[in-house]
């Protein structure tokens, strides 16, 4: 694997952060959804990130994996619903209110979702930085051949 192969790894990282961002945005946007299309309550979504083969063993093994360009890349294996207790809001006039006048709202934790957003932002920036450094190093290496 040459330096260009590092781009693919950064790209995979950015894709994962993008999925996490979309999920967090969906959770925030659906914080007041009382019913989904199939009539059930919206459950907050969570991204499950897995990684391809992680090289273990001696340094030589890890180096061989690096040379083959198969360093572990993260990927989104699934987006799962996190069963959360609904937030009950008293609103008797609401069409989705129960017999006692309570409406079930999704148990989206806005505060922790905002924390997720910050972590997504930092994670994406970290991948961008890795990309930037790789690009800088490649450019410097090419500049080695420039005329005196």
């Amino acid at each position, binding site marked *: 694997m040459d330096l260009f192969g590092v781009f693919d790894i*950064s*790209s995979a990282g950015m894709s994962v952060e993008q999925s996490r961002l979309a999920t967090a945005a969906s959770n925030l946007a659906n914080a007041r959804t009382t019913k989904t299309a199939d009539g059930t309550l919206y459950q907050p979504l969570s991204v499950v990130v897995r990684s391809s083969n992680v090289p273990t063993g001696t340094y030589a093994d890890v180096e061989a994996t690096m040379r083959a360009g198969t360093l572990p890349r993260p990927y989104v294996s699934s987006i799962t619903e996190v069963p959360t207790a609904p937030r009950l809001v008293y609103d008797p006039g609401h069409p989705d209110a129960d017999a006692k006048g309570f409406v079930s709202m999704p148990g989206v934790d806005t505060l922790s979702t905002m924390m997720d957003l910050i972590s997504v932002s930092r994670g994406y920036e970290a991948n961008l930085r890795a*990309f930037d450094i790789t690009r800088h190093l490649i*450019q410097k290496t*090419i500049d080695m*051949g420039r*005329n005196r």
Partner: protein
Amino acid sequence: MSIEAIAALSSGMAADPISTAVVRPESNAFSGMLDQLSSLNAQMQKTEGDVQALALGKTENLHQVMISMEQTRMQFDLLLQVRNKVLDAYQEMMRMQV
């Protein structure tokens, strides 16, 4: 963006009279460079398609297009440097006293 005009030169190179006198390995440095040239051309066309898809709103993620563009730019830069070196060597040889 097409650089096939340079690739077309390779057919003319094969009938080089010097190569008939000496036995050369099949994959010499120059034909290797031409291979690289055609692979760069393919990548440039792919990037062009990516950018077009981005403009049409058919792209799933922006970063892959940007990374592909940067990668193509740097590979072009690398090939340009190799070309400059080859040209330098050629000119250096032409200046040689006989």
